[in-house]
């Protein structure tokens, strides 16, 4: 593709050069340096040996022609023209030993260097584009496999943690006989189980107290535990969307009913 591009460019430059006697196509050049390079190439010599003086004359003639044809020249073409006119005079006149400015030869050498460098860059650009290219001459893997990111939480515990944990529990037991003292606790799981069984019947608003387990009202501690767990369980059911809950006022009875299917 680039070969074609550069070739196309070359041929179009050749075309332009051929037609130049009549048409000054300034737009066809990428600036004064490009124009100078084209002019330099018509000298058909190595750019190192290019005659900058001749080049300056060619350029100035070109600019004069453009002016005669009333072609608007961009400012940088005119700047270059002025500089080349200056360079020309420097090259033609003997150097003034009193002056500290760079000699015409130095300036000319630098211009030649610039031209050679630009040409060199164009040559390597063509070489680069002529290389085998990915997706055109050689190819990458057609089907790729993404690396899957797996986030893993690794919980750690040492045997010491385990033993200390167990010791902690058993130490509590050291101080009292191993008894079932948990019978004063009505767990939320128990309350939830109980509520789930009964809630189907609660079509109308019913006081939460009616769901308390039987026989737990004798002991205040048990009653307290049962109240707390039943309340927590009913909240859980509200969260699940199974029941609605309301309380008209602080300390007023808490009522619930099952959510009607919609």
């Amino acid at each position, binding site marked *: 593709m680039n070969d074609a591009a550069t070739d196309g460019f070359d041929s179009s430059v050749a075309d332009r050069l051929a037609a130049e006697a009549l048409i000054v196509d300034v737009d066809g050049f990428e600036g004064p340096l490009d124009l100078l390079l084209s002019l330099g190439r018509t000298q058909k010599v190595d750019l190192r040996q290019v005659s900058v003086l001749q080049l300056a004359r060619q350029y100035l003639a070109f600019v004069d022609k453009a002016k005669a044809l009333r072609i608007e020249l961009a400012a940088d073409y005119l700047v270059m023209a002025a500089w080349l006119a200056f360079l020309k005079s420097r090259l033609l006149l003997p150097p003034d030993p009193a002056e500290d400015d760079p000699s015409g030869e130095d300036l000319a050498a630098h211009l030649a260097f610039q031209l050679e460098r630009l040409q060199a860059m164009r040559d390597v650009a063509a070489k680069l584009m002529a290389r085998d290219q990915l997706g055109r001459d050689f*190819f*990458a*893997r*057609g*089907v790729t*496999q*993404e*690396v*899957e*990111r*797996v*986030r*893993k*939480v*690794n*919980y*750690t*515990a*040492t*045997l010491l*943690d*385990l*033993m*200390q*944990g*167990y*010791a*902690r*529990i*058993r*130490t*509590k037991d*050291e*101080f*009292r*006989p191993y*008894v*079932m*003292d*948990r019978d*004063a*606790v009505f*767990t*939320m*799981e128990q309350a939830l189980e109980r509520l789930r069984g009964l809630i189907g019947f609660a079509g109308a608003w019913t006081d939460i107290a009616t769901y308390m387990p039987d026989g737990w009202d004798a002991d205040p*501690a048990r009653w307290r*535990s049962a109240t*707390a767990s039943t309340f*927590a369980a009913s909240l859980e059911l509200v969260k699940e969307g199974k029941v609605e809950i309301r309380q008209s006022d602080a300390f007023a009875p808490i009522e619930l009913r099952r959510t009607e299917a919609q």
Partner: protein
Amino acid sequence: MTDDTEFQSDRPVEQGEDRQSLFEAPPMVEQERMVEAILFATAEPVTVKDLNDRMPHGADAAEALVHLRKRYEGRGVNVVKVGDAWAVRTAPDLGFLMQKETVESRKLSRAAIETLAIIAYHQPVTRAEIEEIRGVSVSRGTVDQLLEMEWVRFGRRRMTPGRPVTFVVTQDFLDHFGLESARDLPGLKELRAAGLLENRPPPGTTPQVGEGDLDADEEAQEGQSELFED
């Protein structure tokens, strides 16, 4: 084409030879390279017909595939048949390389450790029994976590009313803690000998209330707070 030349024997021999060499299939090793490149660069699996269509005239993709497949045997990628087409795929045993694991280490919560310890020391044990021993209700999440870590699994159901499930520790658990069996867990005596069973609780735990029943309330509170934690 080769058939043609055979039949038209009246043609000059040189021409026939010319045409033959013109259409001669590339050497098999070249064909193998071609199949290799096509399978590599194509997104979809490629059928033998497609391969032959894309390769120079006279090539035998099926044969090249046989060679290529053999060449990739035991390699990091293999030539595999997908339906009636062929593709290059990662060797199954190297799938783990396609995963990037980020591992986060977290300390197991106190509730989980205690629950785990109880299961280890008392297995098989029901949830109610765990709660009995810990003195607080065990949240669903705690047991789920231990199950998920595969340190605990369900044991046989207890033959008591309600047929509750029991929990036991797993081989993974034993491996993690470097135990031959749960029986190797140090007993109470050894815990005491190791200074782990002092009558003072380790720092940071609930202060011990001397007499039994008094701490029931506290326990209940602890249970509650745990109930609302997760």
